[in-house]
């Protein structure tokens, strides 16, 4: 089994705004594209043009329908990837030490050279955030684009995860959730950001911002200039134009 490092001061992660995510899947394929040619083995696609295509993705977006007691049904788009938990069960369950949490910034990674593809970590993860790549035989997961965020070959403005850089609505935010003054921490504080399934005790670093309350605006109905039927069109026109 693999030990976790002491909690790091720096806790890099994502803040995902469920009020803004339109479910466009841009983050899904930007992630696929970057990581297909980045960290570790490519993300294969089995039966890619066939009956049951099955590829490895590090980030997926699901759509859920919620029917409130009053008002019409609502849609929540829910991006799902590794939450880089502080108490990451996928790390402690790893028999080889391949699954590890970085002491420096808290990113959870798989050392593919040491991974035996046993799948225990995927079984231990309550979020379904890991996928075993059948071609490479190793476990794949979100790296928080560790090969981008410190990459001196990239312009500084691009040193962020591919999913964040591409998100058209700006629903994905990246930063240090260990720093209460960081933009992401402030966003979490302002918008009531929450942990996914806190009862699992995994202490996820990533946070989700809840959808804002939906429904009608508080405005009352408009007041007619006057009751048209009572005074006719000419009366309405006079009243309208007198203030003009």
């Amino acid at each position, binding site marked *: *089994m693999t*030990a976790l*490092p002491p909690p790091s001061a720096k806790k890099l992660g994502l803040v995902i705004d469920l009020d*803004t995510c*339109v*479910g*466009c*899947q841009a983050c*899904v*394929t*930007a992630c*696929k*594209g*970057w990581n297909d040619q*980045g960290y570790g083995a490519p993300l*294969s696609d*089995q039966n*890619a*043009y*066939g*009956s049951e*295509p*099955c590829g490895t993705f590090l980030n997926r977006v699901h*759509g859920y329908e919620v*029917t409130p007691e009053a008002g*019409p049904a*609502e*849609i929540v788009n829910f991006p799902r990837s590794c939450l880089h938990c502080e108490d990451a069960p996928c790390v402690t369950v*790893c028999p080889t*030490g391949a699954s*590890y949490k*970085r*002491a420096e910034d808290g990113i959870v990674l798989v050392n593919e*050279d040491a991974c035996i593809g046993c799948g225990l970590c995927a079984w231990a993860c309550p979020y379904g955030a890991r996928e075993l790549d059948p*071609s490479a035989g190793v476990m794949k997961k979100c790296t928080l684009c560790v*090969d981008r*965020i*410190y*990459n001196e*070959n*990239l312009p500084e403005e691009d040193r962020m995860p591919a999913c964040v850089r*591409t998100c*058209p*609505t*700006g629903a994905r935010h990246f930063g240090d959730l260990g720093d209460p003054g960081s933009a992401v921490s402030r966003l979490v504080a302002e918008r009531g950001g929450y942990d996914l399934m806190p009862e699992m005790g995994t202490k996820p670093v990533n946070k989700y911002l809840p959808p*804002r309350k939906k*429904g*009608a*605006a508080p*405005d009352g*109905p*408009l007041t007619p200039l006057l009751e*048209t039927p009572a005074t006719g*069109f000419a009366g*309405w*026109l006079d*009243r*309208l*134009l007198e203030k*003009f």
Partner: protein
Amino acid sequence: MGLQEPRLDTSPKVSDEVRKTTCYMCACRCGINVHLKSGKVSYIEGNRDHPVNRGVLCAKGASGIMQVTAPSRLRTPLKRVGPRGSGAFEAISWDEALDLAVSWLNPLRETMPEKLAFFTGRDQSQSFTSYWAQGFGTPNYAAHGGFCSVNMAAAGIYTMGGAFWEFGQPDWDRAKLFILFGVAEDHDSNPIKIGIGKLKARGARVIGVNPIRTGYNGVADDWYGITPGTDGLLILALIHELLRAGKIDLDYLARFTNAPCLVDAAEGPGHGLLLRDKDGKLLVIDRATGKPAPFDRKGVQPDLGATHDGCRTVFQHLAERYLSDDYAPEAVAERTGIAAGRIRALAAEIAHAAFDMPVILDRPWTDFRGDRHEAMVGRPVAFHAMRGISAHSNGFQTARALHLLQILIGSVETPGGFRFKPPYPKPPEAHPTPHCDCVPGKPLGGPHLGFVQGPQHLALKADGSPARIDKAFSWENPLSAHGLMHMVIPNAHAGDPYRIDTLLLYMANMSWNSSMNSGAVMEMLTDTDADGAYKIPHIIYSDAYASEMVAYADLILPDTTYLERHDCISLLDRPICEADAAADAIRWPVVEPDRDVRGFQSVLVDLGARLGLPGFVDEEGHAKYRDYADYMVRHERRPGIGPLMGWRGDGEKTGRGAPNPDQLERYIANGGFCVEHVPEEAAFFKPWNAAYQDWAVSLGFYDKPQPYLFSLWSEPLQRFRLAAEGHGDLQPPEHLRARLKQAMDPLPVWYEPFGDAAAADYPIHALTQRPMAMYHSWGSQNAWLRQIHGVNPLYLPTALWETHGFRDGDWARVTSPTGTITVPVAHMAALNANTIWTWNAIGKRKGAWALDPAAPEATKGFLLNHLIHELLPEKGDGLRWSNSDPVTGQAAWFDLRVRIEKAVPPHEAQPEFPPLRSPVPPARRNRP
């Protein structure tokens, strides 16, 4: 295990090189950075500097790498060797292919140029393809706008000189209320998503009006699940409420619209037209003098409430109409599916945002009358709409109604409202009129498509019959500014109005998802005369991929992918401008094709030279352009005005200037695009802002300032109504008079969609939507995108689901007046209670797109197209009535009415068609 972390290189080399070009995974035209490793595409991301997408990129764009490696890519020119539709081809050389094309086309040009019909699908080079067709001399050219969203484009141009999307955009930075009507979420997708993100970040309110709550409607703060085809009625009820409360912008209406113009009340040929002075200028009554004055005189104060010689203002006509109880919320609630209280609440929200929270910019400006304004005052209510409201037989007037609403509250071209993108605004009078003067061996006298002002501009032959194969600009649909691509094959097959010889198609999957009634279209394409000859004798098709249409062509001209070609996103056709900037862009070959394919535009340049078309050969008959790239640089539409605006002349001129041989290098060095910013003083009130008008002239959008008034009252429509009433020499056929009187109303009107005639037996509305992660049929060949949208169940609302006792995994038989399909169903609560829907174009024919015949797209995927006929049900008059908007000819896809019943699950979705023989080898099983 201990804490030893492996050594990790956190600064790996990203790529060998980044080349910046323009995406073509949909029609958005975002800027992309294409990373290359060892000469191959390794990663695609958004270009941060690009005006369209500002660095972000959608799911399709990032999957472009899979489009280049797609097994569906064609490899070489093909000549049909088996029966049409069999998919039996032989590979031929480009010389053989072009010689064959010339052997078909040359005789037509010399004798009957109209026998060539050239229609392009998702073409982004329309100013070029139309120029080629003009040179050929055929009147039969258009792109796909007629089956897409011409109602939006035409209603916008005729009402206010521009429409949504390519013509304009919400003021995302200042709007406080954003209302989205029935959108296609693959259109303008990144700009809308960026905009919604901005609204959300500012806490602005977003409202969706759509029968289906997905995507943008999912994040909307409030949702109105309207009944399809009734948007116009809802909008007119909102107008009713706003008028009743006096919540309209009188100053704006008086200054900038034809609301104060006087409607001729005298019976006769001028009835319902607007009064003009002897110079032809619109007249208003000046409040200062009480006397008539030309609308544009300095200092004139137009009177909205005036009456002159018994003629009342447009404003009085419209107010009287919409104040009528016919438009009261109670009167429309049942029909629209929106409760009266909800309609009132929406009107109140609009009024509140527009008039209690105005946006005031401290920017003085001067209008076309010479009047100076100390500030720019805006009404921060922004609207956007697309196919959902336009793809109905009442879509043109519905879009007009929406523009009327925008204008009544003074939110068009004001801060926080809706803003035009250069080269728009441009009123209909500033557009060309259609040309159809077909003379053998000669070019057409002008552009095919345009904006008619009255019956005199229709494209009719001397005997009054339609001059065009699609009957565009005929009495059946007089304002068909984009043509009617969906009618080309049925009309050519029926010989109505005449037969053709050669059909040349580009990027249009007409034997599948791009046609109504797809099964019958396949039969039309293979149907023969008694002598065994095909009714459409020759079909030439250009596509990059093994689409369903390939099997139905006689000659295939294989196109490149978007990363291997030159293109120009030109101000001459569908530019990529933003409200604050004019912009255009190029594509260039960031990788070379690894097969024997050629960019279609370069092939047209070559064909044009071989045919000796004017504009494509020099005085000695030699080819004028080497290829499309050469055309992009050297072609001049008017002296100094070419396809690309940037780096002209000595390389320092923008807009106007002589061709510059280094132009493409300059574009490439700048990231593939050129941007010219609108001066601050010119940024709003563009149709009337003297600074904007001068700037537009300097860039060559037009040759002199052309301020104009918004047309709340549309005179072109009234001219057709007058004809229908018997005025004038040009008269419609008797059977169309009543319809013209109804549809060509000079004020926005709502009438029942034609499809509703079948409502008694077919009570349910059926729609399609385009997912954000797919572009029409293209996505299924993409290994990544098809994993996101590989199946398309038919979504049913709760009441229907429960009434019919459906359960997960069930199938339904869906029947329309003209067809039946049997398909998988799924439950969805966030729907209009009487609407079912599915994703568009996920269903594929077996053998197409290099997919395995067992692919879910080919076994469970399906099209609603089989339920939608291109003609209305027969009326017993022997006439073929097109299933289109009677104003513009827009295909009325969303008029569809159906009934459903539970079905025994078939072995696969019905109807099924025999597999096509694939023109490409089978795909490898796994990737990589």
